[in-house]
């Protein structure tokens, strides 16, 4: 197995000539791609380099000839000058469906080919409306561009005979369809089918009546729907978020990152000055930015649409607030900072800093530095553990999920990958399609299972036991293992999966937070690390541990020296002074709200007035991610940089700068001007980041497929990456030892056991300000097993009272038929008081 050749790396080269330019490309390359590699554009509509070719738009017709071979000798015939005789086909062929062959000659400049392009465009335009002036795609439209390049200058079609179709069809709440503009290229339906595995849209009827319809209820029910608007070669699909927002040429672009999950998708923020917003610069849309090692050219709908929490609306904090007579009132920065410094000084070692996981590395570094200098605690607002292990056995420099293929394996444990980190789901699914062995271990059914070679079920609480059993299935028998592990080892699927893991050339283990609290997470991370160490899958590219963090920059937090608290309520409650930055413990859990109230002096630093901020003594505003510079470390340990897209409110700075100003008043010197200054300090003092420079983060290489060269027809409107692909950190040099800790038995409860799960669309503070997502945000719910629902006579969709940790919430009851009896799923960030497995009572 170890000597298996990667299937996607084809080494045989084929020589051909395109428009008289000789080119050598790997065998199996399509003619359009070969041409693209040498900068010759063969126009396409239905072809997309990420999708299977279908050859239906007929735009890529070219003349293709092959050398004439003498049947008797088997040799290529030559003419008098010794050049090979080329036989061209009678008809033109579609360049998007023909693979290159040795000696092939492709011609695209002849009159015949040019005429064919003109004819196909003329056909397309007979039904396409002339409403470019109001079309959102106008200005970045493949049809527009190709018509200018290849189309006729006159129109022979009678305008009155143009077909009239519906122009305003909501496919879903987020995507609108204009049936007149659709040119039936099927890119959207093929994307949903081939890439997203959500075939919720498709064609109906035939001929000129062929039209896109949605099969799902609600319409276009997919978290990937926004991508179809990027690859639509006309303005048929538009998003509710950007509809008529601006013309593309009026937009400015700046590089940014998605801050919602640990994938760290590269994005481009399109901004424009707006009269409606009082002349402010406004983020009009979020577009994916190509990074073939992270998000390719895709972006999930949460990343695309949930950016409004950073908008400059009435909910944003614009200046410091100080509590006076029980009320928060505006204060000057000078007074507020002086007060904070005075109280922190008084708190001494009783200072507790709590940092949110969507802060940049620079913020986290300064916060941790302040806490350390004052002898206080530096806490990370996360319920997952293992950041120290990922630093040792995580993915290292040169890893790319796209390299996983035949002979490799990926283990996804305790994680609903599509909900927790959608792009990783996509890339693991693609690895499975390339032949990698994907093993999904989860107590209930998740979407990734459709592509899994092994599906392993275990009881909630046995996450670590299962991974230990996988180790046990190929290592010498150990009698001292707990009964739960022994039982799992006897399972045939576990045994087979264990064999597959042991034999895999490369192995990546993803562990999530499905059903785990901090303690379970720590045990799981340890077990996963053992698995990797035990099978030797460490220290090489494409091998290692990936934590599917609950927060975007949790890895950065661990690297900067912050740690999640084992008992956050106790830590906060005992704090003489609490400095809570970009976290909302009071909003997350009523128990934590009590702890915040109990804390001595509370300073909250955030962009909006959160539930925690309402309880604070001082509220300090900060700039949102759209307004500032900084770096993030993704779950794959890739350090990437975001840039400011819009100016911050006057006086507002990044969190690191506010922290540094407080630190300065306490006599702690910190960089407070430039984020890059802090970054340089990180590079100098954090070993894993040693030697990193801003310049290194900004390095780009040519990526395949080539997109964004102005020919928007080839790859769509995804932005080209000119601002940096980021740097993947190396793993630490010391080789960690195999440590066996007995996985603890899960806590038993008398009644029903609630386990926390993560949903992509939750009701957290970063999602709810985006009104465009509201139709898709579920209300608070719990999921019951069929047996429990039957016993309590609860119907799906019924409202029930759920009591967790003493807090009762009215929720909708869902039923999950893959759930074991006695277990209730309780989603995080829906107002349910859940941090780890706990008891729940459900009443009708």
């Amino acid at each position, binding site marked *: 197995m170890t000597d298996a050749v990667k299937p996607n790396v084809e080494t045989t080269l084929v020589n051909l000539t395109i428009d008289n330019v000789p080119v050598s490309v790997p065998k199996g390359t399509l003619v359009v791609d070969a041409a693209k590699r040498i900068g010759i554009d063969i126009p396409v509509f239905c072809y997309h380099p990420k999708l299977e070719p279908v050859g239906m738009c007929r735009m890529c017709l070219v003349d293709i000839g092959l050398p004439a071979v003498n049947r008797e000798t088997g040799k290529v015939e030559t003419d008098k000058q010794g050049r090979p005789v080329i036989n061209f086909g009678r008809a033109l062929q579609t360049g998007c469906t023909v693979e290159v062959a040795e000696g092939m000659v492709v011609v695209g400049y002849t009159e015949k080919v040019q005429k064919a392009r003109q004819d196909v465009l003329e056909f397309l335009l007979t039904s396409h*409306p*002339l*409403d470019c*002036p*109001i079309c959102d795609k*106008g200005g970045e439209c493949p049809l527009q561009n190709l018509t200018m390049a290849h189309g006729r200058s*006159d*129109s022979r079609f*009678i*305008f*009155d005979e143009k077909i009239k179709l519906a*122009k*305003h069809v909501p496919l879903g709440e987020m995507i609108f369809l204009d049936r007149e503009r659709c040119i039936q290229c099927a890119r959207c339906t093929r994307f949903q089918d081939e890439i997203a595995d959500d075939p919720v849209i498709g064609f109906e009827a035939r001929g000129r009546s062929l039209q896109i319809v949605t099969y799902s209820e609600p319409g276009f029910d997919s978290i990937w729907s926004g991508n179809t608007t990027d690859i639509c070669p006309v303005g048929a699909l538009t998003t509710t978020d950007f*509809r*008529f*927002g*601006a*013309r593309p*040429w*009026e937009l400015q672009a700046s590089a940014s990152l998605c801050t919602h999950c640990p994938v760290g998708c590269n994005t481009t923020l399109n901004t424009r000055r*707006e*009269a*409606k917003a009082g002349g402010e610069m406004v983020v009009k849309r979020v577009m994916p930015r190509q990074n073939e090692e992270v998000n390719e050219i895709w972006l999930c709908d949460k990343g695309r649409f949930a950016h409004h929490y950073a908008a400059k609306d009435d909910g944003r904090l614009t200046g410091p607030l100080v509590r006076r007579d029980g009320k928060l009132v505006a204060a000057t920065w000078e007074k507020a900072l002086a007060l904070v410094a005075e109280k922190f000084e008084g708190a001494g070692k009783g200072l507790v800093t709590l940092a949110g996981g969507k802060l940049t590395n620079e913020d986290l570094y300064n916060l941790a530095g302040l806490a350390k200098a004052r002898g206080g605690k530096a806490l990370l607002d996360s319920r997952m553990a293992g950041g120290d292990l990922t630093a040792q056995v995580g993915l290292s420099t040169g890893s790319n999920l796209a390299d996983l293929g035949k002979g490799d394996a990926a283990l996804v444990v305790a994680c609903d990958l599509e909900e927790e980190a959608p792009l990783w789901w996509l890339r693991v699914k693609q690895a499975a399609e390339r032949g990698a062995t994907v093993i999904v271990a989860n107590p209930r059914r998740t979407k990734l299972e459709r592509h899994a070679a092994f599906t392993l079920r275990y009881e909630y609480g046995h996450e670590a036991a299962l991974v230990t059993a996988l180790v046990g299935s190929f290592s010498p028998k150990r009698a001292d293992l707990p009964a739960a592990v022994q039982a799992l080892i006897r399972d045939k699927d576990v045994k087979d999966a264990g064999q597959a893991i042991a034999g895999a050339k490369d192995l990546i283990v993803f562990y999530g937070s499905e059903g785990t609290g901090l303690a379970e997470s720590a045990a799981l991370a340890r077990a996963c690390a053992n698995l990797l160490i035990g099978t030797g899958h460490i220290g090489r590219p494409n091998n290692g541990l990936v934590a599917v963090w609950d927060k975007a920059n949790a890895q950065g937090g661990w690297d900067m020296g912050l740690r999640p608290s084992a008992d956050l309520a106790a830590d906060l409650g005992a704090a003489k002074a609490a400095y809570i930055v970009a976290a909302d413990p009071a909003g997350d859990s009523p128990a934590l709200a009590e702890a915040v109230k109990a804390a001595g002096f509370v300073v909250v630093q955030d962009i909006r007035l959160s539930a925690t901020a309402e309880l604070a003594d001082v509220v300090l505003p900060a700039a949102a991610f759209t307004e500032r510079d900084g770096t993030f470390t993704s779950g794959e340990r890739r350090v990437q940089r975001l840039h400011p897209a819009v100016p911050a409110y006057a006086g507002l700075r990044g969190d690191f700068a506010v922290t540094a100003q407080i630190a300065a008043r306490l006599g702690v010197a910190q960089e407070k001007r430039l984020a890059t200054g802090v970054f340089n300090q990180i590079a100098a003092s954090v070993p894993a980041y040693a030697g990193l420079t801003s310049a290194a983060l900004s390095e780009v290489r040519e990526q395949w497929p080539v997109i964004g060269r102005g020919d928007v027809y080839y790859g769509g409107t995804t932005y080209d990456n000119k601002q940096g692909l980021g740097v993947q950190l190396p793993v630490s040099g010391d080789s960690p030892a195999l440590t066996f800790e007995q996985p603890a038995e899960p806590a038993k409860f008398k009644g029903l056991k609630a386990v926390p799960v993560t949903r992509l669309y939750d009701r957290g503070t970063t999602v709810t300000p985006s009104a465009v997502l509201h139709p898709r945000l579920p209300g608070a719910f719990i999921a019951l097993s069929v047996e429990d629902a039957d016993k309590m006579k609860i119907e799906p969709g019924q409202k029930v009272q759920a009591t967790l940790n003493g807090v009762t919430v009215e929720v909708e009851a869902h039923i999950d038929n893959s759930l074991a009896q006695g277990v209730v799923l309780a989603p995080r960030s829906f107002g349910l008081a859940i941090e780890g497995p706990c008891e729940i009572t459900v009443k009708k």
Partner: protein
Amino acid sequence: MANVIGSIAALMNGMWTVLKQGLEGPVTVQYPEVKRPVHRRFKGRHFLRRYENGLERCIGCSLCAAACPADAIFVEASENTDDKRYSPGERYASTYEINMLRCIFCGYCEDACPTQAIVLGDNYEMSFTDRSQAIYTREMLLDPAAPDARPTPQKVAPGSFDRSIPDMKDPD
């Protein structure tokens, strides 16, 4: 002698010109009470026109802003509904501003307009005492609705104005 006669003739000639001009009427007019007509192709202050039924021609496409060499035009679009319809089709200009201090009255906006919504009229009487006065908003630029037409926004029957360029004829 001939010199003297020549001088007198020249004198008489000059006197005659004076006399002739003296008998003609004055060329100056009593502006602003009296205004001279402008040339047929004179380019003055802009107007945003309406259709006969009162709907605005402007569809908020921003092509005028794109064509403007002085960057004097600013447009923001919004979506029409049948309950609140400003223009035919889906899109209308919710913000339309021209900075008359920047405008060079070249008329490119007029040429770029796909619905003949913006036209340069014959009004040249623009003076400002403040820079902000030079910004003409949508409300200032729009023609008033004809007496028999309804002002915008209108409530219309669903589906009656679903295309932005309603009167377009066969190009040839």
